[in-house]
């Protein structure tokens, strides 16, 4: 059961995410179109529109979700949202909040040499841009 109370303190995470993403999360009406189209929603713990809801309600499990790292920035959600919310930017903002706390999601030094030797350079460049600070 999640307890929700009226807040007196400002929701700092929400403000930071809105600032970094440039999106107004309160316009979301929870239609679920983003999650329906997301190719990787099946791997996620929190669905995209759940992330928005938890942010606006101040429920503190968004930053520790797997979802923000499973997102591949394919822009499908952003292109389909009927409220013109760019969900891809919201996901990026959440990743950046974590990364700017000096918590890299991928430890470059621990990647196996077989992988480094085989994957195309563009995969490494993109992966590091999304997963490291």
């Amino acid at each position, binding site marked *: 059961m999640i307890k929700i109370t009226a807040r007196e303190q400002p929701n700092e995470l929400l403000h930071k995410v809105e600032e970094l993403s440039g999106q107004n999360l309160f316009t979301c009406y929870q239609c679920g179109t983003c999650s329906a189209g997301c190719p990787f929603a099946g791997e996620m713990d929190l669905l995209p529109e759940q992330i928005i809801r938890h942010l606006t309600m101040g429920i503190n499990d968004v930053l520790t979700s797997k979802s923000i790292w499973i997102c591949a920035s394919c822009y499908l959600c952003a292109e389909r949202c009927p409220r013109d919310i760019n969900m891809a930017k919201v996901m990026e903002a959440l990743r950046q909040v974590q990364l700017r706390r000096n918590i890299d999601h991928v430890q*470059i030094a621990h*990647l196996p*040499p077989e992988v*480094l*030797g*085989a*994957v195309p*350079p563009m995969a*490494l*460049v993109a*992966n*590091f*841009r999304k997963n*490291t600070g």
Partner: protein
Amino acid sequence: MTTPQPDLITMQFMGKNYQVPSGLTIMAAIEYAGYKLVRGSGCRAGFCGACPTIYHKGESHKLYTALACQTLVEDQMCLVQVPFVPVARKRYVMDALQPTPNIILQYYPEIAGCVACNTCTRACPQGIQVMDYIQAALRGDIQRTAELSFDCISCGICSSRCPSDIKHYPVGQLARRIYGKYILPRSQHLADRVSELAAGAYQDEMTTLMHLSLEDLKVRYEQRVFEPVVGQNDEHNAVRQWGSPVDPVDFQDDPQAILSTGA
């Protein structure tokens, strides 16, 4: 009559102001100020990379990097030395490496984090296009990495400033090693010559020379034969100038002396 003294300028080092003559290198100025350099000093000729220095000038916000032995001290310089930039170097065995396109990425994957900001190139005291050689390494162009990084002296200034924590000089070093070992074409006439020598082509002559007296050896040296050179009338032709002040072997190694004789 007193010789004119150079102007004194202000240098701030380790938080203290010193008056030093202008015209000195940073390294000489630090020593003028009374310090004995036991770290951060090496060849004093801009080749060993031991003396990286970070400084700013007066009120300007810009931060500069340079080699202390190659840079003149300026008024209002506020500087600190970095005797050692800790870069993590990877262990590898050259014989076990294959020159695949991803080989440098395999050992230094952080080069994929390069944002092309050019901070490294701007920091380099050798004028090397550091960012471009890292980019070449990223796309597997080992030859270009080796060529562009050739003048690197491994001072580490670039790595100390890089926002992506890239280790530029070990990357260049690995590229040059791979290039030299696997990519550079082999010289067949050199290999043939080496085989000749190994088979004893000059063994008899060497033995004779080893048994000569010092006087006989000197005579032999004076009477040595030069190979015929194309362009006999070239003023720098060794045969023509043998024994003269322009002789590249015999004359004292002083360019000023050569020029002043007007030979």
